[in-house]
């Protein structure tokens, strides 16, 4: 692979590139699903190719190819330079890259049990049994399960001299019970909705999730939701479960801090951000107990945003995003760092695959744990609603106004978790919401959730991001709007 990297860098230099970096990536994926007692998807894929990014005439060009031959990679590099020269026809300013060291390294993410080496029969059997446990519950009209595994090898080289190989294995699993009843469709998922939980790791995740143990409860809750009370429409106290809070962090902290958005580079598609540059070190984003970091280092945990180097060869870092409620950090790249006065990139450039350009992406954007046990937090709440497991999410294109609904809720009265509520939802304005946070659960409740499906960029790239969160309480939140006046 290094030969292909070297060849393409040489051709780019000879064609006039002043900087270039190249990624050869080998991506393998296995997908296994069941539906109502039958295997649904059973597939495997692999893709290998090379993508090269160059600066020529002060502008960017990128080209990719699956032709891993000397001629193929040379043609690809030549194309990238040609593309860069045409970019220069309409460039606004010449590319400036923050200084970065050169690294020669090899790194492998945590993976105790390689899922591609585990017996497939046991994987199919696990899913079919979990599927069967859900369908045993009377009233479950649809049962679904899934396993997904990915193995990604990246060989990165740059014209500055870096040569870095990384291997990341990603595993995910989930189960869903759906019940069609007199009042419509209700659904419960475990360990999370929209594909379940995903981590940087191996089959050990699947074993730890104990799908079989949770399947009957998931089925029962889906059916019970039909007879549960409707979530009221009011302004009040809200406790969010960890997985829902993870998505709240993703949408209302993770995306607004992407510096490419802030600088208008995503204005046509993903949108911009209310976090204009004047707000850096100058905005009370949240209450004083809120601390959020962007941490790609292995020490943070096996998240979907964990790596040793980003896709422009910058080592993984921990960035303080919100410290004691104050806003202090964006996600940056070598090209954007100087716009906020940094001399070095924050190391957040990531690419979906060999045929995509690296762009600023979330790493692990995590809310640091607080001091409360969940039991004490509930006991301390006189009147509120606990909501868990996302059902829908939406936020405006500057990341101010959001609305989420969850699969399930519970009334909290007099410090006790009471009756189940269906169709819960809440909405608000980002900074008002985060400033209303008055309690965060402790490290015992903290989970590094994986969001495997974050879409951004043109052409669209899907990226996995990590979000550490423990349940937290918010005051004076607008509740129940999604189902009002229907």
């Amino acid at each position, binding site marked *: 692979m290094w030969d292909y990297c070297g060849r393409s860098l040489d051709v780019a230099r000879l064609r006039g590139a002043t900087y270039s970096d190249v990624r050869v990536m080998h991506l393998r994926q296995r997908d296994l699903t069941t539906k109502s007692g039958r295997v649904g998807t059973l597939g495997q894929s692999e893709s290998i190719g090379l993508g090269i990014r160059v600066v020529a005439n002060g502008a960017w060009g990128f080209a990719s190819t699956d032709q891993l031959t000397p*001629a193929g990679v040379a043609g690809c590099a030549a194309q990238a330079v040609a593309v860069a020269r045409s970019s220069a026809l*309409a460039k606004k300013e010449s590319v400036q890259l923050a200084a970065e060291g050169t690294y020669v390294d090899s790194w492998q993410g945590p993976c105790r049990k390689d899922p591609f080496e585990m017996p497939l029969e046991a994987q199919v059997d696990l899913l079919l049994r979990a599927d069967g446990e859900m369908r045993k519950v009377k009233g479950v009209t649809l049962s679904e399960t899934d396993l997904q595994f990915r193995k990604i090898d990246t060989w990165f080289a740059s014209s500055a001299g870096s040569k870095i190989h990384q291997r990341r294995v990603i595993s995910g699993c989930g189960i869903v019970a759906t019940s069609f009843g007199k009042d419509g469709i209700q659904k419960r998922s475990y360990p999370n909705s929209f594909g379940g939980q995903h981590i940087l790791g191996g089959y050990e995740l699947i074993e730890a999730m104990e799908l079989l143990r949770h399947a009957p409860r998931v089925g029962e809750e889906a059916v019970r939701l039909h007879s549960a009370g409707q979530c009221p429409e009011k302004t009040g106290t809200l406790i969010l479960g960890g997985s829902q809070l993870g998505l709240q962090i993703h949408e209302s902290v993770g995306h607004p801090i992407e510096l490419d958005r802030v600088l208008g580079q995503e204005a046509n598609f993903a949108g911009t951000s209310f976090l204009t540059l004047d707000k850096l070190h100058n905005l009370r984003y949240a209450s004083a107990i809120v601390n959020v970091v962007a941490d790609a280092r292995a020490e943070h945990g096996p998240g979907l945003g964990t790596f040793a180097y980003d896709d422009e060869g910058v080592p993984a870092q921990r960035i303080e995003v919100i410290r004691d409620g104050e806003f202090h950090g964006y996600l940056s790249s070598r090209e954007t760092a100087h716009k906020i006065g940094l001399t070095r990139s924050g190391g957040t450039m990531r690419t979906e695959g060999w045929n995509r350009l690296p762009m600023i992406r979330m790493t692990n954007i995590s809310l640091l744990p607080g001091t409360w046990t969940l039991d004490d937090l509930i006991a301390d709440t006189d009147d509120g609603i606990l909501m868990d497991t996302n059902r829908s999410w939406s936020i405006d294109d500057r990341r101010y106004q959001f609305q989420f609904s969850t699969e399930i809720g519970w009334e909290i009265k007099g410090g006790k978790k009471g009756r189940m509520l269906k169709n819960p939802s809440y909405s608000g304005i980002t900074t008002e919401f985060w400033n209303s946070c008055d309690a965060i659960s402790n490290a015992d409740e903290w989970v590094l959730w994986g969001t495997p499906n974050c879409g951004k960029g043109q052409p669209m790239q899907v990226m996995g991001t990590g979000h550490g969160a423990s349940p937290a309480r918010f005051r004076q939140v607008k509740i129940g709007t999604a189902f009002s006046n229907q």
Partner: protein
Amino acid sequence: MSPRQKPSISKRGEVVALRPERELQQIGKSVLRVAKLRGVPETEVHIEENIYALTRFANNGIHQHVAEQGLVISIRTVAQGRSARVTTNKNDEDAFGAAIDDCLSLASHQPADSKLLPLLGRQRYRPVRRFDERTASLAAEERARAVKSACQLAEKRGQVAAGIFASGQNQSVLVNSRGLASAYRHTSATFSVTMQQGSAASWAKANSPNVGTFHPLELARIASEKAARAENPIELEPGRYTVILEPSAVLDLAGFLFYDFAATAVADKRSCFAGRVGKAIFGKNITIVDDVYHPQQCGAPFDGEGVPRQRVVLVDRGVVTSLVYSRRSAKEARRRPTGHGFPLPNEYGEAPFNLVFVGGQTPVEEMVRRTERGLLVTRFWYIREVDPYEKVMTGMTRDGLFLVEKGKIVAAVRNFRFNQSVLEMLRNVECLGPAERATGEEAFEMVVPPMKIRDFHFSEVTKF
């Protein structure tokens, strides 16, 4: 004949031509031969080649500019009631052999499926023409020059432009061991532009197999003029409003219905049409067909198994009359397959991807003239499903929301969040405009009309 090792590359270093179709057929035959030597009873091969480039601009300049080419070979085996799929982009017989072995191994670890159908035999297809030579050969420099014009317009007007100009070509070939052989190729071009003026913005976008059917600078002008009008928005109270939805807004919201028309989704009771087929769900002015042969549509005339696509009337004057069927769901429902199945194996069955809403005669300008008080919506954003059975969707307005009073646009309005049942919305359509090929960001391209709708539910307002 052995496959060529790389597609044509121009002197300027750009990939400009797809392989001849016969080369993809040859790859398919090679896979089938390797599978036969391994004793595989039935094999299906789907080969797809893609050449694509995208010029991206923001802050009145190009900031990203990419080009890609790739070939993907997807193989499905069927043996003893078991099937699996393996996909690779390695184009050699060793890779085909390894993929087939993996396929057989994957398939062998599942229980036999008594309802698994044998592969489809040879079919006849109605030809479609969606390949335009000029679009196929559009160079990076041509895209860059068009982008430069849009950026210059923005600068001249004190605005900031962002967007994309993309072009590409794609071909796919589907063959199987029962003699089925189908092929399709198309080109595509997309120009999308956002013009920002102060804190206001507006947007225009077009997509077509033929780049000559739209004019980037004209789209930039439209967005520019609307952005100028979108400044200084007033804030209105949330509530129910009469709305005039431009085609992109209709597309991105109504487009979420597409999977509900799948027979598998209805059988699984996850469709909003479960228990409602044959009933009047929408207003009498709503008729929806799925028609891949429509002149403004795009796509192959066959489905994931090679079944010829049929034109299907899904909604006839408000009544859900038909669903779409894969071979399997058709057999279970004792119907004929309509040619809408996904590649197997999958759990979702089928879906219509070529929706065409029958339009009316009232253009948007006329709708505005006839409106006493209402809101004109350019597009929606971040639409998600809140209630799957009543099809309540939430999302935001974006890039140009305007107040209409006494037949005139009188002010820009701060963006709203909506929570609106699509079923109710399509019962409340007061008039429709001429249907056109619309493109947005949430749904794939469809042919839809602008609509004037009463009692559209906006629940909250944002800060801009």
